């Protein structure tokens, strides 16, 4: 049952990712990208990380995609649909195939070691995934969390300055 769900969702994820690269209209690419994000959220649920799935849908499929679609509609890029939309297909395909070859070689020949950490299915079921994430983030990773907030502040200021007409 899990295997069937995995293969169907993986097929949908791969197909929609392909359509992201092949659609001529950027809005169609964006919609396919949302489908990919939703499939990845399904995988996160299957991997017993429901909080990450919720974050994936809210932050990626919600916030970031709204930003991207907003910019696509703002710039009105649908007009360029008829022109040539890609180049270097042979070179790009070759490099992508090379990447796939190398990574699949590593995955196929390597063995994932290091099992047996303290976060097992029973621990997730008894504490809840959100609590475990919160503990890890606000105890072990407090300084990176604060630095990430500074990064977001810098990004806000940078975006405002870049899109102003006159600074």
């Amino acid at each position, binding site marked *: 049952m899990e295997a069937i769900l995995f293969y169907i969702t993986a097929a949908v994820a*791969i197909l929609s990712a392909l359509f992201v690269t092949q659609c001529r209209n950027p809005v169609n690419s964006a919609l396919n990208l949302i489908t990919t994000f939703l499939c990845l959220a399904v995988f996160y649920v299957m991997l017993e990380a429901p909080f990450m799935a919720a974050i994936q849908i809210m932050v990626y499929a919600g916030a970031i995609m709204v930003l991207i679609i907003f910019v696509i509609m703002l710039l009105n890029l649908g007009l360029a649909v008829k022109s040539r*939309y890609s180049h270097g297909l042979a070179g790009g395909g070759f*490099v992508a195939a090379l990447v796939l070859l190398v990574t699949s070689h590593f995955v196929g020949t390597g063995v994932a070691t290091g099992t047996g*950490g*303290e976060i097992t299915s029973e621990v997730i079921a008894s504490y809840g995934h959100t609590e475990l994430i919160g503990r890890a983030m606000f105890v072990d990773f407090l300084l990176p969390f604060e630095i990430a907030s500074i990064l977001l502040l810098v*990004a806000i200021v940078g975006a405002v300055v870049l899109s102003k007409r006159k600074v």
Partner: protein
Amino acid sequence: MITVNHYMMLSAILFAIGTFGVLTRKNAIVIFMCIEVMLNSVNLTFIALSRHVGNMDGQIFVFFVMTVAAAEAAVGLALMIAFFRNKDSIDTDDFNLLKW
């Protein structure tokens, strides 16, 4: 039985598709979306391995990847709007201001 290798293989395929899109498309926003596909494939690897190892650190790292992706989206799209104002296009072929 779905093992961690299945998830890593899937994320390798998604990463290769993202690479293909980045290298072949002309529209800067579509290139940006292909970069998001690559980031997400890496996120999938992080969560699958974090589940496999039984440790929370990989999932925390995914948080920071998402933060950086959000910051990147804000700044990158602002850059594209600024560029579109000057050139009336966001084709990467027109990004040649620094060319000799």
